[in-house]
């Protein structure tokens, strides 16, 4: 009796995957904060609706914790069904060594080339003419988040751009507030610096340094101005004893700090705290100066799998990600911009609308994650975190080291 029941169960489990061509697909990602988790749920629900099953493989910690785990699973012969990476060159070598799946057929069928805007997103998925990833969303770094309450307390009007913000710094200090909130981890100061480059120096300078990797420009007078601005930021940031970016955002939300330079994902935190854009906080894209956003973000890559049913499910997931309805649902929760412009985002808040407007106007630049390798990015992070923590390094010394990093960058 028992054995027969057992055999029946066995037979059932064996027969199930064959009956329907559906499969369980494990998806690894590092979307673990409140808003991010809600966004992932949208994606999972949409995928489950196709008859397949989304097995959530969230890895806590930031991308720098998660990526080594993902990469070692793929190179170690235990690939997941699909995995998140940032747009750009993080998965470059995995693609080169043939560990990632070619999605060209799916892309052709879905006319990705026509619908995905800006085109740079698909370009960074492309290697030797084939497409290897499905873009999920667009994130941009160039935002200055300001606490209206903090400026009211300091008795100065809310700044309209970076220069006014710097000028208001001493007033904030006098009022016992932290002018600029910056967390301790390296990616934050690195992103802050890149934001200064494009916002204060202009898109041309940004491209010359990061795209053309021109050492002379990196050592030149234009960049010296940026380093002087970074020195200002360093002085304003002194005293913010927090580690993670969302702790720093929290200082702005609670009015303990004047502002923070952080990507648009910070918006999710404001929204969760029930704050209203324009009333409780102010957002300045491009630091209020150069209205250009870099279009980084997330993409889903698909490792090569032997299992046919799972490979089929990968195609379904890729189609699901690009689907207009899923794009809207996911990005509203995540606070990011959809990868296609033909969707309706009436529910977006003011700051998000500003971002969408800038991107649809086409004043975009490619993100540094796409332009330089992870190795160069790490060297920059090392330099910037040292510069911001150690006041004895002069802007000039930092610039010399920066120029040599750019000179040997790839």
């Amino acid at each position, binding site marked *: 009796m028992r054995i027969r029941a057992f055999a029946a169960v066995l037979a059932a489990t064996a027969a199930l995957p064959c009956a329907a061509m559906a499969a369980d697909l494990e998806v690894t990602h590092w979307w673990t904060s409140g808003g991010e988790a809600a966004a992932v749920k949208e994606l999972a629900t949409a995928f489950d609706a196709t008859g397949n099953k989304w097995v959530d493989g969230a890895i806590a910690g930031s991308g720098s914790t998660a990526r080594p785990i993902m990469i070692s699973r793929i*190179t170690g012969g235990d690939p997941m069904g699909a995995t998140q990476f940032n747009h750009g060159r993080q998965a470059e070598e995995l693609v080169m060594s043939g560990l990632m799946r070619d999605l060209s057929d799916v892309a052709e069928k879905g006319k990705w080339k026509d619908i995905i805007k800006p085109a740079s997103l698909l370009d960074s998925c492309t290697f030797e003419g084939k497409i290897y990833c499905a873009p999920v969303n667009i994130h941009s770094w160039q935002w200055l988040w300001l606490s209206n309450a903090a400026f009211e307390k300091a008795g100065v009007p809310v700044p309209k751009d970076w220069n006014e913000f710097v000028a208001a710094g001493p007033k904030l200090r006098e009022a016992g507030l932290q002018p600029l909130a910056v967390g301790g981890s390296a990616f934050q100061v690195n992103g802050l610096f890149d934001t200064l480059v494009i916002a204060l120096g202009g898109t041309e300078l940004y491209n010359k340094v990061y795209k053309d990797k021109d050492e002379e420009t990196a050592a030149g007078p234009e960049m010296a101005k940026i380093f002087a601005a970074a020195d200002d930021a360093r002085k304003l940031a002194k005293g913010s004893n927090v580690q993670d970016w969302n702790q720093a955002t929290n200082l702005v939300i609670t009015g303990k700090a004047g502002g923070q330079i952080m990507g648009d994902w910070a918006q999710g935190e404001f929204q969760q705290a029930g704050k209203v854009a324009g009333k409780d906080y102010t957002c300045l894209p491009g630091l209020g100066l150069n209205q250009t956003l870099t279009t980084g973000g997330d993409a889903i890559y698909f490792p090569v799998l032997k299992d046919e049913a799972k490979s089929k499910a990968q195609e379904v997931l890729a189609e699901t990600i690009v689907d207009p309805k899923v794009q809207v649902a996911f990005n509203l929760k995540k606070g990011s911009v959809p990868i296609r412009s033909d969707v309706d985002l009436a529910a977006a808040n003011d700051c998000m609308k500003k971002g969408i407007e800038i991107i649809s106007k086409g004043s975009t630049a490619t993100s540094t994650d796409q332009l330089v390798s992870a190795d160069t990015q*790490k060297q920059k992070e090392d330099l910037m975190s*040292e510069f911001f923590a150690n006041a004895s390094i002069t802007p000039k010394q930092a610039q010399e080291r920066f120029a040599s990093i750019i000179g040997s960058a790839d």
Partner: protein
Amino acid sequence: MSRTVPSATPSRPLPKSSGRPNQLFRNLNSKIALTPMILVAAVVFFGGTIWTVIYSFTNSRLLPRASFVGFDQYERLWASSRWIISIQNLLIYGILSLIFSLVVGFVLAALMDQKIRFESAFRTIFLYPFALSFIVTGLVWQWILNPEFGVQGIVRSLGWTSFTFDPLYNPDIVIYGILIAGLWQGTGLVMCLMLAGLRGIDEDIWKAARVDGIPMWRTYLFVVIPMMRPVFITTLVLIGSGIVKLYDLVVAQTSGGPGNASEVPAKYVYDYMFQAQNLGQGFAASTMMLLTVAIIIIPWAYLEFGGKKRG
């Protein structure tokens, strides 16, 4: 002591009449049993080490690739200020943690050895931190040393408003903040080892010293400590390996910050191998770590083991 060590020779099954057996076949059973272990050691330890050293001369990125670039990775390594800071931090941490954990551990053990009451309770208390992982230790001390709600916050709330104690946020002294946590975690074990060593000292020696009227501190310093040489060597090896692999404590407490002020070599290796996706650079750094350890170990091992054969 030697009675407690199980010896392999008496259980040898070879008959005596067969004459002098071939050295190769002596203890054949144990040699066969050991073969897998020897193979694993050879392949995993030596093979892995040699492979790492060879690939440190390549420009491998995310995946190992055999395109050799000479000493480029090493030049870049020694030009990197982060690596220099890492080495300096490891030196400071290493020397101080060696001295303090030995001294504090021994003093605690000697105090414990005075036939005090509740000895086992104290022993448990001192050894407890060792049961915690470095990550937990690091987090606990991150909170204790946090200026907002740690020691500084408490003292300030008691009235001393100008009191400042924030080692983890001051680049000049951050490594000492890590040292405190490391000592808190590690001294308990040193104490236990030392206590075991002290208990191994024959009671008669103490009696003889007392008869001769030698003060207690002199007995410890000139009689007991030299007799505890094997215990000290074991302890040194344990502390030493703990120093070289220092990584998780830093990650949990400061993640290398503020800036690069508390970076250590092991973290450099990990960060460059996996975050920067530059295996070559990580291999070069780990080869330098191996070289440093070898520079210390080889002369010492030569003196320790080479000398005995001659004597």
